[in-house]
């Protein structure tokens, strides 16, 4: 049942690449179910070879799935491929565009591929070169642009048809922090102003956390978990690290393992560092023990689980877990 509220709706999508001579077939996607609402930013995380690019390629019509059902903007991914290609667009991190076409020529050419009339192409070209700060490079051929400029051009190209869904495959890979921030800023603006649905793959955890409302963790062609960054962090068993600074800490520090089960890696008079399973259950007994032993506490720092920890935990988790 297709829903008009959803930009992406997938049920049981399978994709297997035929094996090369002598090698078995590769199951790139296994029974993928996914629903992404209109105007959402959804991030796909996963180790290399998890199937992220395959999934984006299936959704953007560049790769035909073997089985399952799917709708993009309410259109069938098996029957309405050309219509879907007109409504979506994509940009990948390692942008490859015709190498001796200038910025203007590239945008003009791709504008034509999307069937835009000349006036519209010129207007879009002006608008997008300004949006991605490419005005000074309009006559420069693609192969003479820096990596950051190539990436910005690839993104400008991906917005030519005002896509309802934008697929971004590692859009900021290999870029310096300044350009990365510019691109993230532009993408957020686009999402807020035009309600463009963005499907993003990245290996940068801060990007995933800052940009997306929901994150899907893909491993060996399956979504292992789909949730918000906060929910994902809460979902893994993660030992928080508590670091206490002060004076006369050593006496109580050596007892903490017995008192509340905290395993301490550093215990000196000035500093205690230990790992705890539950802040709610273990922090209070630790502090009480320290105060009762006459310690003077100056500072407490608690390191929380990061999305990177979630990534590692899920990547290491076996399928049977």
């Amino acid at each position, binding site marked *: 049942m297709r829903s008009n509220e959803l930009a992406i709706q997938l049920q049981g999508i399978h994709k297997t*690449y*035929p094996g090369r001579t002598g090698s078995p077939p590769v199951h790139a996607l296994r029974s993928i179910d996914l629903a992404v609402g209109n105007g959402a930013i959804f991030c796909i995380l996963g180790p290399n070879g998890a199937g992220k*690019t*395959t999934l984006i*390629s299936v959704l*953007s*019509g*560049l*790769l*035909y799935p073997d089985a399952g059902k799917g709708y993009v903007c309410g259109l069938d991914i098996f029957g309405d491929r*050309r*219509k879907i*290609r*007109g409504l979506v*667009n*994509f940009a990948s991190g*390692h*942008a*490859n*565009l*015709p*190498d*001796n*076409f200038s910025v203007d*020529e590239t945008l*003009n*050419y*791709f504008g*034509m*591929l*999307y*069937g*835009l*009339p000349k006036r519209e192409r010129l207007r879009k070209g002006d608008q997008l070169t300004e949006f991605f700060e490419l005005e000074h490079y309009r006559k420069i051929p693609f192969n003479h642009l820096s990596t950051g400029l190539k990436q910005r051009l*690839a993104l400008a*190209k991906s917005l030519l*048809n005002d896509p309802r869904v934008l697929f971004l495959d590692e859009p900021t890979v290999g870029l310096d922090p300044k350009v990365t921030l510019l691109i993230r800023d532009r993408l957020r603006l686009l999402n807020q102003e035009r309600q463009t649905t963005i499907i993003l793959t990245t290996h940068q955890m801060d990007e995933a956390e800052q940009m997306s409302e929901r994150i899907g963790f893909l491993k060996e062609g399956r979504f292992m978990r789909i949730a918000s960054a906060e929910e994902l962090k809460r979902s893994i068993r993660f030992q928080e690290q508590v670091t206490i600074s002060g004076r006369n800490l050593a006496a109580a520090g050596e007892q903490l393992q017995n008192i509340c089960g905290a395993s301490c890696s550093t215990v000196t008079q000035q500093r205690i560092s230990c790992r705890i399973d539950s802040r709610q259950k273990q922090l209070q007994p630790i502090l009480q023990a320290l105060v009762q032993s006459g310690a003077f506490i100056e500072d407490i720092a608690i390191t929380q689980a990061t999305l990177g920890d979630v990534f590692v935990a899920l990547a290491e988790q076996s399928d049977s877990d």
Partner: protein
Amino acid sequence: MLHWRSNLIQINAFFFKIWLITRKRIFHLFEILFWPAIGLVSVGMLTRFLHLDSNMVAFILIGVIALSVVQIGQLDISYVILYSIWNKSLKQELAAPVNMLHLIAGSWLMGVIHSLLVLIILSGFSAYTFGFRFLDQGLLPIACFFCGLLLTSAAVGIVVCALAFRFGGRAHVGANSIVSVLVLLSGIYYPVEVLPAPLQMVSACIPVTYFLEYFRSFYGFPINGSHTLLTGFGLALFYLMAAMAILLAAVHHSKKSGILLKMSE
């Protein structure tokens, strides 16, 4: 109305692409003009060395001009895909709502212009240097001859595109091979009657054989069989449609097997 307009713009996209490639890659311009000119001069010199009469010179130079038209006509269609494979930009372009008809029509249109340019240059050059006046036969025979060759060149170009979707950038080897087969079997430099009987049967399946026979008849060479031009066009259209079907199957396979993505990595 809007649909047609957007289709025309998409066809124009590939015309524009080949125009940019021609303008920016001196090598492409070199391929279009230099090799056909070298071919004409070297074969023309050979006819002088052999002291051939004017009809025999015409027989051979018609073959050279025909070969150049087919070669150049297919080149632009082949390049529209090969260039993207070499640049690894194919998936970016095919992510747009374009189809193979847009791609072939746009690039073939530029192929027609380049072929016409080659035809005019070679005709002028052969008249000036070797006294062979190609254009003297009037507009209709030349138009029929030229159109037949263009249809054949489109079929060759489309097959090269299909090979490119299957084997990547190495497909240009296929273009050279197909043109070499035409040289061998369609009577470019000699009448097909000199070929062994089984090969003559293969020649009878090649449209260029008929277009050459038709145009050479204006210089006193006999036509074997009736409806030469009709047979040539019938075969050319058949190959054009067959080539299109092969291309569509190759594109489908590349999207099914992931070759399209591999070619863009």
